[in-house]
């Protein structure tokens, strides 16, 4: 049953507020780096971010008007295209190496990261496919395994870029979609055991893995070395106190925090806006998650429901991983903070995917039983 209804206002308003705060914080966090590294142009990062935000918002309004079922039908092709593009980043002339990783594709004047498109494709394709053959999930080999193999396939492609944070994100989002679609709890538990075994194996036999864990458990032991960024992050957050130093008055962004406009933008926000500001921001994110899950609950069909939870999780997982990393609650992974962290393609694709969520909300079924 489709109804011609308005989109979910709470999602829309929370996204707009987060985007506004995010761009302001991005400016504050990025100007020292922009000033030092980009020949005195303090607006270097924020200019780019604004441009992509506008692009993204336009994309959002367009996609909001496209029936998400149409996207479902093209999702298998989209998914395959993504896998091909992921393979292409390695090919000279098309792919390009930036900061030690092959993540970008240049086609003429356009450049973008296939991994961003992959995020949407995976959510759409998994949801579409699962809505058709959900019953088979009762069985491991017939049901769950094909999806696990697909997850393994794109994870492998992402890992050779390498793009660890995106891999972690998509594995978790896929897991949530499969879980909500009705995957057997016992299958999950069964997969948990080998995971723990692998973890223990890594910690026991690999110096590098152990070092990461040590850095995480005892950050103050090696201030100048591996723990530098996490300590700087804690200094920033701790300096914020209840009310913060005030917008623009943070000290830690002055090249103490590595790329303060990126993964550690939350630490800068914490320093400048204080605990009160963080509560407000995390509340906005929670409003988004709550309304996103509500859209999933009220979606007209299982496909819509799974896409909604997938897109909501896409944002939610990034938020909790990012905050957990900057507060040194989990070992460092390099997850960006949605709507805040600098990154053109990422922001544009994020806003476009919000468009899909809003479209589902428009078709929501609000009738009572």
């Amino acid at each position: 049953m489709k109804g011609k209804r308005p989109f979910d206002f709470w999602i829309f308003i929370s996204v707009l507020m987060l985007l506004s705060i995010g761009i302001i914080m991005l400016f504050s966090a990025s100007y020292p780096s922009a000033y030092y590294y980009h020949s005195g142009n303090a607006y270097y990062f924020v200019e780019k971010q604004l441009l992509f935000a506008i692009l993204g918002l336009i994309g959002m309004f367009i996609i909001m008007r496209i029936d998400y079922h149409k996207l479902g039908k093209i999702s298998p092709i989209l998914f395959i295209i993504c896998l091909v593009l992921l393979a292409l980043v390695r090919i000279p002339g098309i792919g390009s190496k930036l900061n030690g990783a092959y993540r970008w594709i240049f086609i003429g004047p356009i450049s973008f990261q296939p991994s961003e498109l992959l995020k949407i494709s995976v959510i759409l394709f998994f949801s579409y496919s699962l809505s058709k053959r959900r019953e088979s999930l009762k069985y491991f080999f017939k049901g769950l395994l094909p999806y696990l193999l697909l997850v393994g396939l794109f994870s492998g492609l992402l890992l050779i870029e390498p793009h660890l944070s995106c891999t972690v994100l998509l594995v978790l989002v896929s897991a949530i979609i499969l879980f909500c679609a009705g995957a057997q709890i016992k299958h999950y538990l069964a997969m948990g055991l080998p995971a723990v075994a692998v973890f223990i194996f890594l910690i026991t036999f690999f110096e590098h893995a152990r070092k990461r864990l040590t850095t995480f458990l005892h950050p103050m032991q090696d201030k100048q070395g591996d723990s530098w960024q996490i300590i700087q992050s804690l200094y920033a957050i701790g300096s914020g106190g209840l009310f913060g130093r005030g917008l623009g008055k943070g000290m830690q962004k002055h090249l103490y925090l590595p790329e303060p406009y990126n993964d550690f933008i939350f630490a800068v926000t914490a320093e400048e806006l204080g605990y009160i500001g963080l509560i407000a921001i995390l509340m906005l994110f929670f409003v988004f998650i709550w309304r996103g899950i509500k859209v999933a609950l009220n979606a007209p069909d299982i496909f819509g429901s799974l896409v909604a939870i997938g897109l909501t999780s896409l944002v939610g997982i990034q938020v909790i991983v990012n905050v957990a990393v900057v507060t040194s609650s989990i070992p460092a992974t390099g997850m960006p903070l949605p709507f805040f962290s600098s990154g053109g393609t990422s922001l544009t694709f994020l806003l476009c995917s919000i468009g899909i969520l809003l479209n589902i909300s428009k078709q929501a079924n609000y009738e009572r039983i």
Partner: protein
Amino acid sequence: MNNSFNLGFMCGGMSLIGVTLTIKKRLLFMLLFFLTIITALLIRLGWIQIVNGEWYQQQAFEQQNSGIEISAGRGTIFDRNGKELAVSANVETVSINPQEVRRSKKDKEVIAQKLSDILSLKKEDIIKKLDRKSRYERIVRKIDKEVGDKVRKWIKDEQLSGIYVVEDTKRFYPNRNLAAHVIGFTGSDNQGLDGIEATMDKYLKGKPGKILSEVDAGGREISSNEQKHVEPQKGNNVVLTIDETIQYMAEKAMEKAIKDNKVLRGAAAIVMDPKNGDILALTSKPDFDLNAPFAAPSGVDPSAWKGNTKEDIDKLSKTVWRDKAVVDTYEPGSTFKAITSAAGLEEGVITPTSPVTDFTVKVGGWNINCWKPNAHGNETFTEGVYNSCNPVFVRLSQTLGIDRFYNYVRKFGFYDKTMIDLPGEAKSVIHKKPTEVDMAAASFGQRFQISPIQLITAYGAIANGGTLYKPRLVKELTDDNGNIIKTFEPEKVRTVISKQTSDTLRTILEGVVSEGTGGNAYIKGYRVAGKTGTSETLQTKKEGRYIASFMSFAPADNPAICALVILDHPDVYPHTGGMIAAPVAGKLVEDVLNYLEIQRKYTEKDKDALQVDTVVPDVTNKSIEDAKKLLNEKGLTYEIVNKGNTNATVVMEQMPKQDAVVPAKTVVLLYTYKPEKEPTVKMPDILNDTIEEAAETLKEIGLNIKVKGLGKAVKQAVPPGTKVTKGQLVEVEFKQLDTE
């Protein structure tokens, strides 16, 4: 709605059509999942920002502010009378922030050239520092204020940024080597490295000031923020219990003793006030000039000396820096017999008049004899102490038993550090589970090691009526205006023996000096008490492997000071404490008591022995009657020499001549004729004679004697057989021969 999560309030008014119940349950589970994690993260954030916020803020502040430090003036160290022992002079330090200098876009070469001109440094070195990536480089430390002002003026004229001239302090020790080990010295950052400079560092150092400017991680100043000055706070002054004059006396005494006795491994002396544990002097030799602590010690080739290598520092630590009085341990030898005596007297197992014997005693197969061949035999306990007979003390300890004996050793503090305010105090090496043999050896001070400071602290208790005090080295702290801001009161540790035992033992130990083996420490008019000590070290080399010591206090009836003298490896014979350490200690005690204006009280014996020197008057060409009168007035006697001419009434010649300084009762020969050649006599051999014997011998042949010391003659100024003019004054040195 049949969902177990009960979150319906958040999703009110929804429908369950279209999406299955399982999916809805799991969606609600996801909502709960996100809610829980976000709540947890908020708690975590609160923990960092609110609970630990201040700490992180402090840490961040420190890294965000450039550390151009202004040194705080270091407090002065005074002696007990307010004389300066260590002072700080104002100097300056020039430093740069290389990043800031580079940013100012001034020519590096020009800056380096000018700095090298003013500061007389190598230009290349300055350029090297200017090229560094750091945000703080020190160009030069501790330069004179005038030079610093030149740099200041240049900075101002040229409007330079990133170059700083800040106040610094430099330590200066006006008395150089005096009390070197007590005072200690400081490092290049004005931090205390040794002695009181190290142990009182927290009071002396003050709080450094800072020129604060907020900087980014690259050390560049963040232009929107201004500089702040935090003024330094001067440190407190430390007033010691040391008396500069007594310290000087002790040091001179040690230097002389080392020279006289060819002491190979240095010496130590401590002077303490037993009434409160105040250390009046503490010296250890060899020592060093506090103004150049890293200089090559004597006997080391200065051209091969760097002073900062590990080997060099090691060498310094083992030699001149080593405070033998506190960080070294040694066998106390016979000085420890006073402790054994105190235990016996306090426990009532012996009295001064108890009959004892020093015949051989056998302990665990070991025969312990008296030092004197064939022993002294039966004697009183007091005589046993005078004669320092080992078997007497072994028997006394056996009467006490291990428990009681070691209880006193413990009570006198030999198991604990004294906690004197000096670094590196040694821990005694003493039996943990003593056996009978251990105790027998310990009863006369062998086979265990203690530090000199421990011994004098214990003797303090014997001298002061029985209370053990912690040695006090720091009297008080004062501020810049001389106001006392903290007083370190004398600290009683415990009562060890009764007043009565203390009195008895003091009398016995006084006898050791006036009658026994400590005779060479005897001072006329001051009642010195003490005990000698000679210990063999484990060294196999033959020459001077002994440690000679003398532990004394005076006056015996009301002790004002305790003094301990230790000579390590004297290369002379005899090497006993009684022979070489006692005279040094006696002289030191005399000097100190004189300085402290303690009245001399002469005993009858003293008065007899006392020969007040007098100047011989000129009596030539005077009548014999007048001459007699003049000599009588001066306390001199006379003898008329007349060549048969009994009627002669005028003195033609005298011997000794006018202005000679002679002892009282000296016989002056009065010649009633002009002798062509004064009659001479042959100098007899008087070595090993007693004073009485020597005086008699010389008097018989018409020579005058000048007595030095007590005991038996060890040195005569004129060798035997020499022809000496009749009536001449011959100096003879006597010493108490201590064969212990």
